[in-house]
């Protein structure tokens, strides 16, 4: 099918590098690995550039390939027995100016402790502002499964947040009392 839109590789990199990098970084928790994944994703895009039909198609394609690549990386790391999130919790490679507000950073750290499918669904929902149907198409999963992951992930995250907040209040009181 003929289409007017001509993809420009460099322009696509400029437009989507932060999206691809953020997805990979939040899924793997390792900035170095996320950068490698992002490079691999864009090189794959370069090889398939002729098949990309529109800017929307490019965005969808990049999200799907980025999520697949991060899932592969997580699987490989799990096989090797490496806990990626240790690095992120230590703030590995994150510049001070890039760190978010304390609450945001806590939420992100808590998100990191969720199972990968829940994390993937939540990241696509709240980072990319996608609907469950779009998330399902991106992850190649049934919509019902995605909805369940979203609900369960949010529930887990809320529970963790409440616990952390209680812990925070208790610690503050004990510090004040002393």
């Amino acid at each position, binding site marked *: 099918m003929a289409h007017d839109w001509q993809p420009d590789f460099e322009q696509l990199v400029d437009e989507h590098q*932060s999206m691809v*990098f953020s997805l990979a*970084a939040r899924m793997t928790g390792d900035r170095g690995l996320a950068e490698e994944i*992002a490079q691999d994703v864009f090189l794959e895009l*370069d090889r398939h550039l002729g098949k990309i039909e529109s800017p929307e198609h490019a965005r969808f394609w990049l999200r799907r390939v980025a999520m697949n690549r991060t899932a592969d990386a997580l699987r490989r790391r799990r096989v090797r027995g490496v806990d990626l999130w240790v690095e992120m919790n230590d703030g590995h490679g994150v510049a001070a100016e890039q760190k978010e507000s304390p609450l945001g950073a806590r*939420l992100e750290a808590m998100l990191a402790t969720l199972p990968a499918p829940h994390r993937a669904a939540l990241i696509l929902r*709240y*980072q990319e502002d996608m609907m469950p149907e779009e998330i399902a198409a991106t992850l190649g999963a049934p919509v019902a499964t995605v909805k369940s992951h979203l609900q369960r992930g949010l529930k887990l995250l809320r529970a963790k947040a409440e616990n952390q907040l209680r812990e925070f209040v208790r610690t503050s009181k004990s510090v004040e009392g002393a």
Partner: protein
Amino acid sequence: MDDFERELRQALERRPAPPSLKRKLMERRNRLTAERRQGRMVWWQRLAASVVLCGAVGGAFAWHNAEERRKGEAARQQVFTALRIANRALSRMNAQLNERAQDGQ
């Protein structure tokens, strides 16, 4: 969407990609392109070498065939010549025998 989800959305804003990402990516891309181009060139070189080799083998085979045919033809001509000589000798002998037979009578 409640406050918690709003806070989560804010926490999950896209992070800027490292400034080195694009540079490294373009370097890898250029390297891959160069490797692919070199690979294609090697492939063409191999193809050209194969064509030359096939031509040489085919030419040698054709030359060998022509040479064999030429030798066969030369041998045939020699046989004909030998037969002609033998024929002439026999005719001569036959004529002499006839002469002697007539002299005897």
